[in-house]
């Protein structure tokens, strides 16, 4: 039965997988999606610790924002979010059956546009640390 189908002794013998654009897109989308959920949970958690009052809230946030590492992470978050959005839109089009022949090109476009947006926003993000 397929459920217990055994692929045998040599399943992984020296066989590398040559990824195609669609597979890379899938991997990246998955990765970025997970980072985003992770962030969502952390985000709420962080905000929760700061609900103790006006000062605490402002201090917590501003305190965090003063750290370079947080700023860098934010750039990371932006890139992850932007890619996920762009590729997400690409996937929505795929779901609707548009532009299937150009799925590889649209994936590359998502990457390029993500990079461009991220580079363009670095000054805004890192300003005033």
């Amino acid at each position, binding site marked *: 039965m*397929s459920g217990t*189908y055994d692929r*045998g*002794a040599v399943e992984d*013998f020296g066989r590398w997988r040559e990824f195609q654009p669609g597979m890379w897109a899938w991997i990246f989308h998955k990765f970025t999606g997970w980072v985003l959920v992770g962030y969502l949970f952390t985000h709420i958690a962080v905000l929760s610790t700061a609900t103790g009052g006006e000062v605490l809230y402002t201090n917590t946030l501003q305190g965090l924002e003063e750290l370079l590492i947080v700023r860098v992470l934010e750039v990371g978050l932006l890139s992850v979010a932007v890619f996920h959005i762009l590729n997400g839109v690409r996937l929505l089009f795929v779901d609707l*059956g548009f532009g299937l022949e150009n799925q590889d090109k649209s994936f590359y476009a998502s990457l390029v546009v993500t990079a461009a947006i991220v580079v363009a926003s670095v000054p805004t993000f890192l300003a005033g640390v």
Partner: protein
Amino acid sequence: MSTQIEQEQTEEQTEADAEAAEPAEQSHQDRRLSEKEARAEAREREEQAREEVRDADDTVRIKVFRYDPEVEGKSEPRFDDFSVPFFKGMTVLDALIYARDHYDSSLTFRHSCRQAVCGSDALFVNGQQRLGCKTQMADLEGPVRIEPLPHQDVVKDLVVDMEHFYEQMEAVEPYFQPDELPEGEREEQRQSPENREKVKMSTRCIWCGACMSSCNIAAGDNEYLGPAAINKAYRFAMDEREGEIQKEDRLEIIEQEHGVWRCQTQFSCTEVCPKDIPLTEHIQELKREAVKSNLKFW
């Protein structure tokens, strides 16, 4: 040249064996003769091959996966190298046949039609699923690595167990089941040329299994129907001759847990299909059809 497992025994041993297991119909004399002839002939073939390789304007090298659980010396998977004289129009399958017929007759692979219709020889060539008979050697970078399809149990050398693939194909009720047939004698069911055009690509599948082997999801989920089976379901679901009732049934089959929703639109199936079937497109269309029919019931 051949890297076939060493089979040669000393003269005495062979003779001793021969005496021990001599079949009734064949005299000892006969047998020795044929063995001698065999050795001479094998040498001759290899010599001939070597000569052909020497004389050829061009030769190609192939690295072929070898494995036979049953034979000592082959039970550890490995690669063998063969040099093959090149001719214009040579396919991967031609190269394999040459290697088998000249160097090592135990080299095992499925093939039959030589024209991309029987679907026997889907192989993993230079890291991609392709039909051996439809892949020109000239288009590949040498040495050409030839391996069995990934994610299927390897039976021997390039032969994989297709049973799982067949099961998935048959799980989608891959047969025509019209709601009704015309009454009149010798009367065909009408089908518009447009509708035939719509299902045309999906009917071209030759069951080679390349798509299934290339799909990551199918590799991770044994029960996933896989692109070929879903395409088969598409072929019937979209055929207007079957009728609406049957179409609902078909949508239920592909909508099950390990059906269309598993597909992550990775497109590798579409990339490798030797019959150029737009598999991802068909899967996506079925997803939409399924959603539509579900919404209808709300």
